[in-house]
């Protein structure tokens, strides 16, 4: 994927990335900032066309936005002039699906995400975690087979994030959804996924693939405590070249 930069220059966001996500699989994608993770996701959603190569979802070539895929970002993107229920129904409304059925579906989803009593509220009346759950409900309301999640929980506080991770893991398992999750949180990647892909600096390439061999993907809280987690984390840190202090301890002591 290349982009035309200013003054006719071209920069390559991602190069020779070849990834496949199986049906019902949850794959996390981690890598340094600006390595093109989001570009990859936008190609998958059909928002940008790749300059070289193709994307396929459910065996169909992605030519543009399509009904198999729905995405969710760090920002909740709830429309302030719509109630929570109306927000959840945005996608079904745009696709002109049956209103009565969509409303029932929206109510069921909101109830499942413990937002039933907030259906008639406006986004500004909800907390960050509730808004993000509403955004997840909106993503699921169009019944996509694939979810593309771009750092969905990075804007909420640590405790809320643990709850949201649990909600997401349960939903993905119960609804048998396929998901590609972009995250900066190494632990989140490990506990939520079947597989973790590591990308390099720009131009982004896949430099490692780790199969997470911990049972019960729908129980991230339980997975957190698994002894294997530490091993996966240190491997990820090594691949991403982090964990080696940038500050020279000796020099710091000498200056004190």
């Amino acid at each position, binding site marked *: 994927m290349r982009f035309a930069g200013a003054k006719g220059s071209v920069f390559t966001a991602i190069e020779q990335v070849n990834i496949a996500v199986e049906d019902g699989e949850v794959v996390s994608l981690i890598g340094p900032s600006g390595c093109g993770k989001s570009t990859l996701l936008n190609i998958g959603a059909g928002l940008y066309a790749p300059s070289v190569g193709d994307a396929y979802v459910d065996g169909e070539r992605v030519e543009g936005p399509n009904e198999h895929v729905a995405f969710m970002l760090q920002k909740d993107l709830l429309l302030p*002039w719509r109630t929570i229920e109306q927000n959840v129904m945005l996608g079904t409304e745009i696709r002109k699906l049956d209103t009565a059925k969509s409303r029932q579906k929206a109510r069921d989803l909101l109830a499942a995400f413990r937002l039933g009593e907030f259906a008639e509220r406006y986004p500004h009346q909800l907390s960050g975690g509730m808004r993000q759950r509403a955004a997840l409900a909106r993503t699921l309301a169009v019944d996509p087979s694939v979810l593309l999640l771009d750092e969905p929980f990075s804007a909420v506080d640590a405790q809320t994030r643990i709850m949201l991770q649990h909600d997401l893991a349960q939903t993905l398992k119960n609804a048998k959804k396929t998901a590609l999750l972009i995250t900066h949180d190494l632990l989140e990647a490990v506990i939520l996924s079947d597989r973790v892909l590591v990308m390099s600096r720009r131009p982004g390439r896949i430099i490692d693939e780790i199969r997470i061999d911990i049972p019960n993907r729908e129980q991230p809280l339980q997975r957190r405590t698994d002894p294997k987690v530490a091993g996966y984390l240190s491997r990820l840190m090594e691949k991403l070249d982090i964990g080696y202090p940038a500050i020279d301890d000796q020099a710091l002591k000498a200056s004190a």
Partner: protein
Amino acid sequence: MGNDANLVRRGTIASVILLVLFLAAWEWGPGLLNIPTFIVPPMSMVYKEFFRMWSVNNLAFHTGITAYEVLMGFALGSLLGAVIGYLLGTSPTAEFALSPYILALQIAPKVAFAPLFILWMGFTIYPKILVAILIVFFPVMVNVMTAVRGVDPDLINLARSFKASRSQIFWKIEFPASMPPFFAGLRIGSTLAVVGVVVGELVGGNSGLGYLLSFGEGQGNTAMVFVSIIMLTVVGGIAYLAVILLERRVLHYMPKRAMGGI
């Protein structure tokens, strides 16, 4: 909540005290300071003048004419401003092509067009409405255009990912997103409409509050000028209030504190 009620009560009391002080100063201040009544007529004199003008000068008719011109100028000016604003906001090409002319017209003092319009259309209500349209147009257009172009691209992408058509993106995302700045533009426009109409009436014609204003000036009747100014303020105030009430209805989803008092 208790604090809010407290603030409202104390604020109202302070406001009323200020009004009483102002009216008292107006009534007795000029006499105490030996200011002649043809410079500052006291309140009671202006009050009497109001009833004299009501029966002798047909004040109600002139106020009605001005109010009608303000309403027409404001309505047509905001409609035009909104339409052009949405057009320029959604089409970068149109904006690029038209922006120099719009900027030039925006810099030109709109009230200076009043004599020209009177030359074209005579001593009718139309030149006054036209000045008001011209002066209301800009704040509304600029606010709408900036709002449409400032819509979060991720929101547009979200709609696109649901396979939204161009018109769906406009009606479901861009149009509602532009409402708060649109109303901010309408608030400004509602006060400017009165300015446009008055200038038009001052320049030529024999009807409207602007005409009474210049008639009073010609007669050396300061109280008549005062009454005309007060009535113009009332007309402008009603227009502004109407916008606020409509805004409260349309933007009911906004958090209270974001609405901004007046």
